[in-house]
């Protein structure tokens, strides 16, 4: 533990994952420090989404540890599925999503929606929005929850050119203000500096994970 | 033996069909279990051997 810099928010030690007796990856080590932007790469099926879910705490860990050195960093996870209710409006969705942990005023939610370019769509139900607009609603949550670590799974999906540029600037702002990001994406990021973790390098030659016991 | 002959053992004073069918059921169902379990194991071993051949 001594080698870990004090500013690190989350450390992944020797993580491995086995799915249906097939080893996805093993020996994954990295630590997320404040200001880091980690880009998780790897071919299809290399376990990017699984790694992200493990870090988020959505899956039990079989092998390895994920530790939080300093005070428990607050994590926000945005997956393939956005977690929005179709029958509810953009504002109502943000209200319950944020309400799970803290609270927000309508003003704050409207401001966040304006920031993601959805001014005037606050009371539209999600069912009436396009895929890109839905993605933006989900991203608006990032501005409302004061999370330290953003875990984003393919956050550029369905966004137009402008949307991608906007989002990259938010990522940059977040890292500059002491936050951290771990994200998967098929496209390269145009912002720097980016730390890259390529999961293809962690796929073991033999299909079995090293864990012989338990 | 409780019965005088094999014939009375078979008939059991009219209860033979009930008793014997119960015993048959017991033996047959449990034998199927053992036999099926063994069959599955043989199959799994065959597949493991195939993997071993592929790797060698």
């Amino acid at each position, binding site marked *: 533990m001594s080698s870990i810099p004090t500013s690190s928010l989350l450390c992944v030690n020797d993580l491995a994952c086995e799915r249906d007796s097939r080893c996805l990856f093993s020996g994954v080590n990295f630590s997320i420090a404040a200001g880091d932007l980690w880009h998780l790469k790897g071919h299809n099926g290399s376990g990017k989404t699984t790694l992200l879910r493990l870090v*988020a*705490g*959505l899956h*039990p860990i079989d092998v390895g540890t994920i530790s939080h050195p300093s005070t428990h960093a607050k*994590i926000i*996870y945005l*997956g*393939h*599925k*956005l*977690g*929005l*209710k*179709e*029958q*509810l409006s953009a504002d*109502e969705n943000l209200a*319950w*999503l944020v*309400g*799970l*942990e803290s*609270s927000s005023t309508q003003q704050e939610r409207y401001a966040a929606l304006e920031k993601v370019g959805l001014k005037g769509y606050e009371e539209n139900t999600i069912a009436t929005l396009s895929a890109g607009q839905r993605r933006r609603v989900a991203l608006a949550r990032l501005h409302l929850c004061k999370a330290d670590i953003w875990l984003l799974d393919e956050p550029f999906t369905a966004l137009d050119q402008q949307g991608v540029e906007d989002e990259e600037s938010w990522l940059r702002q977040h890292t500059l203000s002491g936050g951290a990001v771990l994200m998967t994406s098929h496209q390269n990021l145009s912002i720097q500096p980016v730390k890259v973790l390529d999961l293809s390098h962690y796929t073991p030659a033999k299909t079995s994970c090293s864990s012989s016991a338990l | 033996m409780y019965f005088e002959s094999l014939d009375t053992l078979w008939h059991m004073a009219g209860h033979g069909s009930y008793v014997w069918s119960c015993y048959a059921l017991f033996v047959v169902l449990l034998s199927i279990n053992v036999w099926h379990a063994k069959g599955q194991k043989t199959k799994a071993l065959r597949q493991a051997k195939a993997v071993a051949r592929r790797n060698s």
Partner: protein
Amino acid sequence: MINFMLVIIRRDLLLVARRPAELINPLVFFVLVVALFPLGVSPEASVLSQAAAGVIWVSAMLATLLSLELLFKLDYDDGSLEQLLLAPYPAWSLVLAKVIAHWLVSGLPLILLSPLIANLLFLPTQAIPTLMLSLLLGTPTLSLFGAIGAALVTGVRGGGILLTLLILPLYVPVIIFGAAAVVAASQGMAVDGYMALLAAMLVFALMITPWAAGAALKL
């Protein structure tokens, strides 16, 4: 944590308000099943009043199961289940909140509807308060046990029939004591014992099911 649960309950009630069919369909189903019974057996009051307690309880059970199928399924499909599980509260509180919301829109209307149904089946009037009270104690137990099944089949395709298979055997004690209470009341006998047993089962269900369903959701 109370706030967390309230957010979930409010959200689920709002969703039902937006799509009232979810509230109404199980109720229609409930009435329909009960109405089919006299058609299949006999419209005679003597026959119906004897079977009324059992028929109402079985129908209530089926209606509950029908609506339980989607308890976690919809949240799983759109990804909000992930967000609920990621909140820094134990999974059992999430299950409890979902069950409370579910009971408010399925169990409660059923209880309010039951006097009407009881009349259709010629259940003696003196048994109606007992029927409502037994449903009040019994339907939350049904929802709670059903939540385990719903959680287990969440990620499984075609989970509806599977849910029924998993959960119906666990409903046996509830239906026995629930129906027996109504029968006893229609014969003018004391029902305190049955109510105590139903209440005990509810407490028991409250103790184990949120834990079990929470564990099942995390798989």
